[in-house]
């Protein structure tokens, strides 16, 4: 079983976000990027599949600041091969990312490609279905469990309200992972440091990035809130008093 995981980095939403001077994009100069948490789950699911059924896990990630650490962390968790796609991906859309990744992933001849079901900065759809079409593979998203058997994969697709659909998908296929069957495993920094000494990151150059199919943004802005909560301030005791009086008002106490 040859499993490829595609990971990308996304803005850390805990940080202050701002718009660049053009007014049409996020200001990336001070923005901290972190691993897309759904890709983290995709990586965990790949390792789980390998542990259960054997095989090789290759993690592919486009180049961003901090991506080497993400790749080495994957290796520390059990990934066998690390590939970085060199290119200017910081402002690239998912169509460009999908095309560039497809060119690299195709050569790896994967049985299964896992990636996060979505990312917080998707503006031209999640990368998974776009990638699948570029690779000529079927796609199922919102997956929270995967079983491989007889050249087919059974993907547990989540619908709202807790309903699960078991989808049978012929391989090779791309799955968009919502959640791994267990939380992404923790690896100690010391272990990542050890892996950095022995693991290598293969670098592939991306061909010219082709963003066609993504929408042009004329204006980007921070939404003006139509309403805002009445803020309760003071010491924790004072805030607790006020909350209790609200609970009383609505008849909960």
């Amino acid at each position, binding site marked *: 079983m040859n499993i490829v995981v595609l990971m990308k980095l996304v803005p850390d939403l*805990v940080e*202050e*976000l701002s718009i660049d001077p053009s007014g049409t994009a*996020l200001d990336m100069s001070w923005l901290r990027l972190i691993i897309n948490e759904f890709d983290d789950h995709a990586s965990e699911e790949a390792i789980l599949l390998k542990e259960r059924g054997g095989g090789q896990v290759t993690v592919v990630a486009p180049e961003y600041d901090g991506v080497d650490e993400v790749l080495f962390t994957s290796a520390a968790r059990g990934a066998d091969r690390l590939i970085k796609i060199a290119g200017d991906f910081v402002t690239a859309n998912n*169509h460009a990312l999908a095309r560039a990744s497809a060119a690299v992933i195709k050569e790896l001849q994967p049985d299964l490609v896992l990636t996060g079901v979505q990312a*917080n900065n*998707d*503006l*031209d*759809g999640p*990368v998974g*279905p*776009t990638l*699948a*079409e570029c690779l000529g593979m*079927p*796609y*199922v*998203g*919102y997956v929270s469990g995967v079983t491989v058997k007889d050249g087919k994969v*059974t993907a547990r*697709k989540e*619908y*709202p*309200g*807790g*309903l*699960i*659909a*078991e*989808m*049978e*998908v012929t391989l090779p296929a791309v799955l968009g992972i919502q959640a791994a069957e267990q*939380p992404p495993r923790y690896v100690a920094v010391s272990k990542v440091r050890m892996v950095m000494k022995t693991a290598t990151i293969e670098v592939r150059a991306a061909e010219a990035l082709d963003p*066609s*199919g*993504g*929408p*042009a*943004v*004329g204006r*980007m*802005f921070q*939404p003006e*809130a139509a*309403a805002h*909560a*009445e*803020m*309760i301030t003071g010491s*924790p*005791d004072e*805030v*607790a008093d006020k*909350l*209790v009086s*609200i*609970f009383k008002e609505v008849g*909960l*106490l």
Partner: protein
Amino acid sequence: MSQDIFVVVEHLRGQVADISYLMLAAARELSKGIGGNVVAVLLGHKAEGLAGSLAADQVLYLDHPALAEFTSDAYQKALSGLIGEKQPRVVLLGSTTIGSDVAGGLSIQLGLPLASSCRSFSADGKFVSQICGGKIMAEGDLPSPTALVTMVPGGYKPEAGQSAQAPALTRLEVAGLDALRVSLAKYIEPEAGDVDISKEPLLIAVGRGIQQQDNIQLAEDLAQAMGGVVCGSRPVIDQGWLATSRLVGKSGKHVKPKVYLAMGISGAPEHAEAITDSDMIIAINTDPKAPIFEIAKYGTETDLFDLIDPLIEKVKAAKG
């Protein structure tokens, strides 16, 4: 080429999803700016009955046994044929477990542009999308020639897309639905037995801000003192700290309690859409810019770990 606005009707197990009605409402508004008819596209098998409530000028009904239940492969094949042939101005799909699985593939296959997470359209027909957990909006001209757009809830009311009068329905042949690579094996029902959080009057909700599993007990203590039930947002469920039956959000349950006490929840759109029917939202979050404060009636930036002990004490005192 036409100026029509297609709405791909999402339905699951015989129920039209609210997002379908919401998109019909959006399409009607958009048509006032850019013209064209509102055309509902219904894919299914023996599913004509679902068309009756759709507020559309016309329904195009694609009937085929392979479309009886949603699968990405059959839907994409059927839709690519239809869109390629009819060339509407816009195709609206849900930014959902259904629409998001096919929109990207359609975009590459047909060479058509895709704008996702659209919340509304401006009067002159621009798409307005929300990204970065609702903290950033992106606006742009509807791309040409046919714009594929996936929509999130929030900008329109589903009721405005419902109609008591059934629209005219045209049945279309679907070809090419063979050699499908995705099939539905079965549905698995959600586990019963746990409390139904959609019926609880008081929900103590925890998010990423609860930080670690041990801290869930703090929320449980508060819930016990108040007579409420603990639920959580996606990160908490994915960590395995709470059962899936307690998940509030796009992929979990929509809730409508008297009070929704959100602790350490930022209020990303996927969560927010599921709690807006609450009578009152109270948010505790140290990030003053958290979107949860825009839908909450009351809020505080007090650290929940400083607040929860005195709160439990005072609740107990008030109960006597």
